[in-house]
């Protein structure tokens, strides 16, 4: 999967591509001044925020923000916790500066 985000003065565009099967989904619209981007995971909802499903790990690679490698972008490393328990951990950026691993640690 290749996820992309772009924003200009007139348009914000998001795209997810399944390069294995040649599929693509895209949205676009007027920007509202998005200032932050997370490379990782966010919750779904079904009345309330759902706990994460077990997934092993996800290796995010070729990560860039404003054209810079993630390791040069000054990221905040966020770990999902609930009731003091670590559920999903974002590991540090790897030595190549453009990849990191997101690891499932425990069910809520």
């Amino acid at each position, binding site marked *: *999967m*290749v*996820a*992309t*985000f*772009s924003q200009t003065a007139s348009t914000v565009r*998001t*795209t*997810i591509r*399944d390069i294995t099967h040649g599929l693509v*989904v*895209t*949205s676009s619209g007027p920007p*509202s001044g*998005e*200032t*932050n*981007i*997370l*490379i*990782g*995971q*966010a*919750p*779904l*909802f079904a009345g309330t*925020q*759902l*706990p*994460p*499903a077990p*997934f092993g790990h*996800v290796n*995010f*690679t*070729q*990560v*860039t*923000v*404003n054209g810079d490698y*993630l*390791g*040069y*972008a*000054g*990221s*905040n*490393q*966020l*770990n*999902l*916790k*609930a009731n003091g328990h670590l559920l*999903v951990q*974002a590991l*540090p*950026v790897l030595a190549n500066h453009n990849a*990191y691993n*997101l690891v499932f640690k425990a*069910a809520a």
Partner: protein
Amino acid sequence: MSRTRRRTITRGAVATAVVGATAMALVAPSSAAAHHSTMARTAAASHGGVSARWSGPHANTVGPSSYLAGHSVTPADGLSSASATFKMPTVDCSNDNDLRGQIFGLIDEPTLGDTESYASVWAYCSSGALTTVMTTQAANDFHQGVSVSPG
């Protein structure tokens, strides 16, 4: 402008986004400050009106979040683009009949449930079955594609 999009699913149903354009009471989690914090991206050395930007890797900060996991970036000069490649992980729904799930990808969600845009794959377990779907949102434009397989 309030644009709240809750990624809502219902048990046994095809993934459906409930778009709520009305303002809702948003809870600002304790991580919001960290999430929004802007890193000091520039270590400027100034001499005689000449400054130099530090071009080395920036140290990360590490903190907890009640709803996000990953690397969050707030560029000091504004956000213009981002990209990432990942393989869809194997999600294990075998031991759980509860609803569980998340989205993977690029996400702009400054506060819980207040998603402004994302390029993602939804993955959730319902009654022991896994559903995955390619999903994007930008402003009011929301689209879902087909399911994806791990790998």
